[in-house]
């Protein structure tokens, strides 16, 4: 079964493209959220396997959301995305508990798959 996926980004156009892309590559996109609060709410409701999480959201940073979601065990794994380069964020990515970072323009099922790696079996539960 395809991993259930939640896409969190404040840009509608990106959410739409990411959904099309990921669905085309076998992910089951179960929901979208446009800010931190609705992301937490959606995670509580959906318990997705994977969260594609934008770093910069209107109400809080992706790092803080990631920590909260993981601490409360609401989601499986988190992949951070941003249109900026990873080097702009330094070690924050690692500290947040996310499995990795993908520049938005490099987002693909394959890239996601690589990051999720061995955990894929979890994601497909």
């Amino acid at each position, binding site marked *: 079964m395809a991993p259930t996926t939640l896409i969190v980004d404040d840009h509608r156009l990106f959410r739409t493209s990411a959904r099309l*892309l990921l669905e*085309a590559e076998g992910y089951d996109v179960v929901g979208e959220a446009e800010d931190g609060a609705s992301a937490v709410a959606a995670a509580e409701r959906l318990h997705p396997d994977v969260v594609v999480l934008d770093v910069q959201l209107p109400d809080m940073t992706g790092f803080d959301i990631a920590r909260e979601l993981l601490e409360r065990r609401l989601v499986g794994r988190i992949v951070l995305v941003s249109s900026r380069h990873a080097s*702009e*964020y*330094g070690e*924050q990515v690692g500290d947040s508990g996310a499995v990795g970072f993908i520049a*938005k323009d490099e987002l693909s099922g394959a890239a996601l798959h690589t990051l999720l790696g061995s955990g894929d079996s979890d994601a497909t539960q």
Partner: protein
Amino acid sequence: MRLSDRTLRRLAWAVVAWFVAAMGIGSLVLWGHNTDADGTADDVGSVLFGLMVTLFPVVGLLIIRQQPRNRIGWLLLAIGFAWGMSAALELYVEWALVLHPGSLPGGYVVQTVASSSWLPPIMLMGVYLILLFPDGRLPSPRWRPLAVLAAAVIVVGTLSFTFAPGPVEGEVPVPGVENPIGVGLLDPVSEILTGVSLVLIPVCILGAAWALVRRFRRSRGVERLQLKWLASAGALIAVLLSLSFLASIPPVADEIGESAMRVVDTVSILSFGLIPIAIGIAVTRHGLYGIDVIISRALVVGMLGVFITGVYVGIVVGVGRAIGERQPSVALSVVATAIVAVAFQPVRERVHSVANRLVYGTRTTPYEVLSDFASRMAGTYTASELLPQLARVVGEGVGAVRVEVWWRSGVRWQRQACWPATDEPESADAAVGAAGDVPPLPGDRVVPVRHQDDLLGLITVTKAAGEPVTPSDDRMLAAVASQAGLVLRNVRLIDDLRSSRERLVTTQDDERRRLERNLHDGAQQSLVSVALLTRMAAARASDEHLRASLTEAAAQLQLAIEELRELARGIHPAILTERGLGPALTSLAERSAVPVEVQNDLSQRLPEAVERTLYFVVAEALTNVAKYADASSATVSVTCEGGRVLLEVVDDGAGGADATRGSGLRGLADRLAVVDGSLHVDSPPGEGTRLSCTVPLTSAPSASLEPVS
């Protein structure tokens, strides 16, 4: 019974009339008959003495006209009355015994009384006037015994002189006539009583002088000013009396001759007239003249006089005697004159500073205040340095306990500096007023500082309780304020410039951040989404050509996104805002064409303006390293010590960078100046380049003064 002011004034007039009549008629009648003990006529001396004494009742009258119940005024009049009485008695004696013998009765009785008539006025002048000045009361009850003793001396002295048995003594030589009212019983004690009285006179005078010193020491305010007048007159008299004494010692007297001695004597007698004059000024118009200046000048003149006389007498007389010359030697006179001429200037300066210290104490003299102020202002340009200095200069100059400098910003007044420095916040707001009005602030004086008609600031001066602001204080404040007006105007302009540059840089930084944010949120997001969709479309396209086109489009989009990302980062690095200077520098180093090592010792975030400035300094420096230095590696180090951030960018390249050329480094220096930082470039040819800058962390970027509205 309480006399009316009018009656009191009439009484004062009557006393003066009595004095003038007695003295005047006496002088006219006795002209040509006055003889000294040695028989020489001394008409001029007695007339001068009369004129000097006249000043006492006259000043008394002037005081009583203004203040009919002034005790010192009445004391002066009493002195006049007593001298008048003495003159009248002498006139009677001369008339009855010398001019028209037998025409008036009781000549010898009156002569006996007259022989001690100098005692009351002398004691009034020498003891009571000094003891009771300036308020007509004893300094404290502890001085009552002195007053009683002086009264006893007057009474006992007068009685023992008057009733002593034996030959009549007095001005008129009448040998062999027994005192007609002599009391035989007094015979054994009268001489003792007379002797004791004579000894007690100087004792009482010295006691009164000591009382004056004590009173002066603990005096405050107006009383202190009044005492200064009397004290300075006293000091001058003391100097003149010393000169007179010096002139009277035999070798000196021989040298300077009879007439010179007379002049010195006359001047020193006349100088007693300074006492009533000083008292008159002290009582009626002490607020009008700067006594401090007068005293200090009088001291200088007096001490110089003593110096010159001393040198001259010492050399011409002393040395002359030693080498056995009888007549004053011309050579010695020349030597003395030469020594005085050579030593005059240094001695004058020394005497001047001694006089100033005596008068002003640890206070700076007004002249020093002004020149000190001018030289300080020359090297100071920021309000945060200048205003406290202004407060200090004024405080030390006028001996204030507190000085505040207020600054006008718009229609509000703000306290910008305080002296002495206190823990309370430097700034405080004061009442709003119309822009040109001086607001009611606490203080003995509120001095406006203006430039042309523009009211820039205020200096408030508070002196110790009871300590008045003297006329010379006022003149000094006015002088400082007028100098400060021009200087503060310049400071305000410089401050305006500073803060406008600060605003420009801040605005520019904010603008850059906004631009980066817009690029990131707008164009970049759209491009990213389009790139994703294009790539997906390419993956799905079954048509070979279509797929190739879409793949190419996706690749071009990818390039555009990369370029845009770099552009945005150059405009403003998000990592700097989010993660601080250290991570931002690391990120910068990672993308540098030349290998860069970052040594970051900062443990905390720095003020935003400082972080931005240092980041751009490093960005510019690394760009230069990559472009021009031909370096193989570079090091960026940041440390924080002693409230300052030190940043260095060092490369091992060709060196020879010129800080004055090119707009890059100049721009960095300007940016650094906004945060009070400094930039230093050390770049000897062939030895690499070391760019270092320092930024203080405590800097509240200058006491920012609002521009003049």
